[in-house]
């Protein structure tokens, strides 16, 4: 199969899709979010715990394509232990990378394994898959700001 595809499915992505780091919901959590990508049915449920502004717990459960699942696995290697502001910076960096339409490389300091997703930005139809867990995490952080734990709206479509 062609090189174009290998740009999308980096070995690291395929590995993470199988490894599924951080899979499993944590019982002690401050925010929970369920998100779904209605066009392809990728879905994720994520729970996080935040203590003194630091992410101390992170777990997810999901179903979907390799890009969406690998992305959650990669995030599990990044989020725990970070200050929430730092995490937000990384979410923004990832979003910028995903919107780069193939021009961005991503800062490895900030994005760690997530730089493997740089190639996804060349496939506009797949950007949503890669973003799913990151936006779920962002939703969790917003919930904590709003002082609520709302599971989000299971998509009605």
């Amino acid at each position, binding site marked *: *199969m*062609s090189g*174009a*595809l290998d740009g*999308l*499915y980096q070995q690291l992505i*395929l590995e993470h899709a*199988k490894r599924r780091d951080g899979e499993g919901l944590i019982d002690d959590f401050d925010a929970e979010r369920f998100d779904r990508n209605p*066009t*392809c*049915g*990728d*879905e994720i449920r994520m729970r996080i715990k935040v203590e003194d502004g630091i992410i101390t717990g992170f777990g997810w459960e999901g*179903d*979907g*394509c*390799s*890009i969406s699942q690998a992305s959650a696995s990669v995030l599990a290697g990044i989020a725990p232990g970070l200050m929430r502001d730092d995490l937000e910076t990384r979410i923004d960096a990832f979003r910028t990378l995903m919107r780069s339409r193939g021009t961005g490389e991503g800062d490895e300091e900030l994005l760690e394994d997530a730089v493997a997703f740089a190639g996804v930005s060349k*496939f506009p139809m*797949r950007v949503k*898959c890669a973003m799913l867990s990151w936006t779920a995490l962002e939703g969790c952080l917003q919930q904590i700001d709003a002082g609520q734990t709302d599971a989000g709206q299971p998509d009605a*479509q």
Partner: protein
Amino acid sequence: MPLDETRVHELRRDFAILSQEVNGHPLVYLDSGATAQRPAPVLDAERAFLEQHNAAVHRGAHTLAGLATDDYEQARETVARFVGADADEISWTLNATDAINSVSIALAKANAAGGAEERIRLAAGDEILITEAEHHANLVPWQELAAATGATLRWVEVDDDGCWSLDDMRALITERTRIVAFAHVSNVTGQVAPVAEIVEAAHAGGALVVLDACQSVPHRAVDFHALGVDAAAFSGHKMLGPNGIGVLYLARDLGRALPPARTGGSMITTVTMEHTEYMEAPTRFEAGTQPVPQAVGLAAAVDYLEAIGMDAVEQHERELAERMVAGLSALEGIRVVGPAAGVDRSGLASFIVDGVHAHDVGQVLDVQGIAVRVGHHCAQPLHRRLGVAATTRASAYVHTTEAEVDQMIEAVAGVRAYFGVQS
């Protein structure tokens, strides 16, 4: 004349879009079930209309208005004849979804006002019967109607292959059943419904039958009078025709009984500040400016299909579907859903690749220029029953060749290895 390879290659010359390369490979378009491509005669007809006759129809007295009205009504005649209906039983809609909503909303309206005619009365205790395989377009509107009237929505369940049976359907049709709505051909499984038998059972109890003909009218000869359905819906864009036009068939009696879902200009006889009188069907169901060039284009699509012959279309697609099912089923770790081999199915195959998500399957095919549909195909309950969030669907049409089907199968054969899934 059968649709043999020579003829298919001749037809392909009419579809400019098919001659391009996608991702460095000749395009293999196997997504006609979602939207079909338009041949030159359809595009030409729309353009000729716009360049020569375009005007507002059914209003104004100038020459162009007359010519445009003639084209428009001629299109209705053509489409009506194609589906075994009379022209006054055919009204234009936006698409099939809009057509089904026109029925469900009209029924809600008629019953909200009270005093609905017996045939269209719906109340608490009554039942609307559908199947678990329905496209959301033929599911959600009925949920809404049930909620609006207090009626109960019931459904025939599907089996492990996503198919439902006539026996189960019959068992659920009772004296409480007021509406039976189902797809003539499933857009996911390709299962073909035994329409006449269901109509007989439904009518015996006084229920109306609403047929989602989206995947049948484009692909086989359909005669609504012969089938005996009360209402039917299909979309122009799935039958080589334009976007933005659909068709609602309402058998004459039902067309008289139903109120219009939408009201406004063009569908009235007399309007006072207190009250409005509506026109007869089909005009009463066509409020506002209608998709006139699209109607002309749709009639051209019908002419195109009739020139090929619907039996030839059906036969061609049956052969391609058998080829898909045989080729895909022979692959390790691939499960084709839908009717068993040998049972009637339309020209499509939806399948599950063990260990690989449909979205990833579609991606691997796309880089090879092969366009298939991945996802739940607007049939989430069906997919839930199949135990997957998404399937991959390849669907054929008149321009599809055996070589294209083989290319798709070969591409699918490489998918599991690419993702390192063990056999």
